[in-house]
């Protein structure tokens, strides 16, 4: 059950390469779990940008001194996100949340490894807190292109049992990708479950490493979305169902979190030939 809220932007702060936005509004935090996302309208009612923008929910609080709040971490990418980060505190912005399926949490305490790339770290501290509350041990790897694209390092460090950073340029932490740091971390932490959020190639390498070790990974994917609520079918990717059949599945309602071993990473951007309803040769 998602809520559509005319929210007030009560804080807009630059943090490294990102903007940390806090919205307040009735019901905006209701039902939010780690891994959920929000869809934000950009521009006014005559905006040429007619679609919402999707963002992982960083934090949500039903009761604060300023009412219910929802926090997002936004990277200025194109015109929509540029508009959003340029908004002044006090602006009224239409937010739909929570959307999607959140991270599945282990039923019994487990050793969890959280892996994030870039703004993929946005939901990770929230997730770590929930896991810890359930008695899990939490290890964390944050990767980014460069230092300014790391987010929430201090909080993550505070919560994690083991914590590591990788950057492509070596500006901080280990030079390289998160996948470079993962094997050692998995061994050290005796990882039983992996949670990942970040760019598709990163998720694929995380899912591969997890599968190789027979560990379940939960990956929050990022596909272009037009509606975010399940009505348009733009956001699909090939996912293997419990029945073993591959379907083009909506990442906005069936995801964004998928089991890493179920996503056919190599075939994203295609329709696998064995997918349900795939074009037959000579067919549509």
């Amino acid at each position, binding site marked *: *059950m*998602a809520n*559509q809220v005319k929210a007030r932007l009560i804080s807009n702060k630059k943090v490294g390469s990102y903007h940390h936005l806090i919205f307040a509004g009735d019901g905006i935090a209701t039902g939010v779990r780690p891994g959920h996302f929000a869809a934000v*309208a950009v521009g006014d*009612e005559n905006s*040429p*940008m*007619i*679609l*919402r923008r999707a963002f992982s929910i960083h934090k949500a609080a039903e009761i604060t001194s300023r009412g219910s709040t929802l926090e997002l971490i936004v990277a200025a990418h194109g015109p929509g996100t540029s508009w959003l980060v340029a908004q002044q505190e006090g602006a009224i912005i*239409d937010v*739909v949340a929570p959307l999607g399926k959140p991270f599945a949490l282990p039923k019994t305490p487990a050793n969890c490894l959280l892996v994030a790339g870039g703004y993929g770290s946005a939901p990770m501290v929230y997730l770590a807190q929930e896991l810890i509350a359930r008695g899990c041990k939490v290890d964390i790897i944050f990767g980014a292109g460069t230092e300014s694209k790391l987010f929430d390092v201090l909080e993550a460090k505070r919560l994690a049992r083991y914590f590591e950073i990788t950057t492509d340029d070596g500006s901080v932490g280990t030079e390289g990708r998160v996948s470079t740091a993962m094997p050692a971390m998995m061994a050290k932490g005796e990882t039983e479950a992996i949670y990942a959020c970040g760019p598709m190639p990163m998720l694929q390498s995380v899912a591969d490493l997890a599968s190789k070790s027979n560990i379940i990974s939960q990956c929050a994917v990022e*596909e*272009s979305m*037009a*509606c*975010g*609520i*399940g*009505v*348009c*079918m*733009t*956001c*699909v*990717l090939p996912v293997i169902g419990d029945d073993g059949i591959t*379907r*083009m599945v909506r990442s906005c*309602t069936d995801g964004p979190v998928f089991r890493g071993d179920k996503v056919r990473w190599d075939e*994203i*951007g*295609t*329709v696998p030939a064995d*997918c*349900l*309803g*795939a*074009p037959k040769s000579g067919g*549509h």
Partner: protein
Amino acid sequence: MAIDSATSLAKLNLIAPVLTASGCAAAGKELDQFFDITKIGGIVTKSIMLEARSGRPTPRMAETPSGMLNSIGLQGPGIDSFIEKDLAWLHERGVTTIVSIAGNNIEEFGRLASKLRDHPAVAAIEINISCPNVANRGLVFACNTESAADVVSVVRRNVSPGMPLLAKLSPDVTDIVEIAQSVKAAGADGVSVINTLLGMVIDQKTLRPVLGGRTGGLSGPAIRPVALRCVFQIHAAMPSFPILGMGGIRNGKDALEFIAAGASAISVGTATFGDPSAPMRIQNELLQDIENHGFESVSDVIGVAHKGDN
């Protein structure tokens, strides 16, 4: 609202003039969390085909100035699963349901129609003869008077005479009035106007088409003037032939333009992506606008833009 919000599309009576647009509301369920979907005119479901269908590769969408392109490729579960799950849910929910159907060939349209024949949940059938995404060697039924009529005829033959049939037209034709006339002659009770315009966007980095399907359908406010012109032209030529108008409707004022141009009801498509409560909001705004203009009913407004024309 003080005004009479009822309207009709031929044999199809609606409590209110705003419906969803096919492909922009799935089968209604997801929208029901944002507004009560029994309170709008009705739900037009995503075009359903005979078999399950995967649709096209991603990316399937690109935002364009005041519009968007999509190349979904009619992804769907197939008619049997649709009837069993989606239609059953809509029926139970008490929604006025217009089922959109799409076939790969004329025969498939006939089989789709016979599957829906006498189904108590089907208030009307919208025949999607105009989807430009179906790679059928470039042939689109709606682009030719004969193939358009053939599809409508076969559907007509396979449903009971009382079933309202709307043919959904493509704007990508030289003369849309000619197509409207041909589907009318073939037994359509009205037309849905318009489907998307064929368009393309090229990626700045790769310099290749953005969409997996290369071309896609353009929708949203950008196309509204074209949609409105099509509605106006068809109403001018066939004033008593009902029109379900759509294309870029974003608020009540936009909707009012379509009704004035000759639409008996309107569908909200792309606007729902930007605002999941758009159909309900637009219906409220429209009824308020109609009242503000001093009209007493929706039907009083239909076609007023033609007044005084000969």
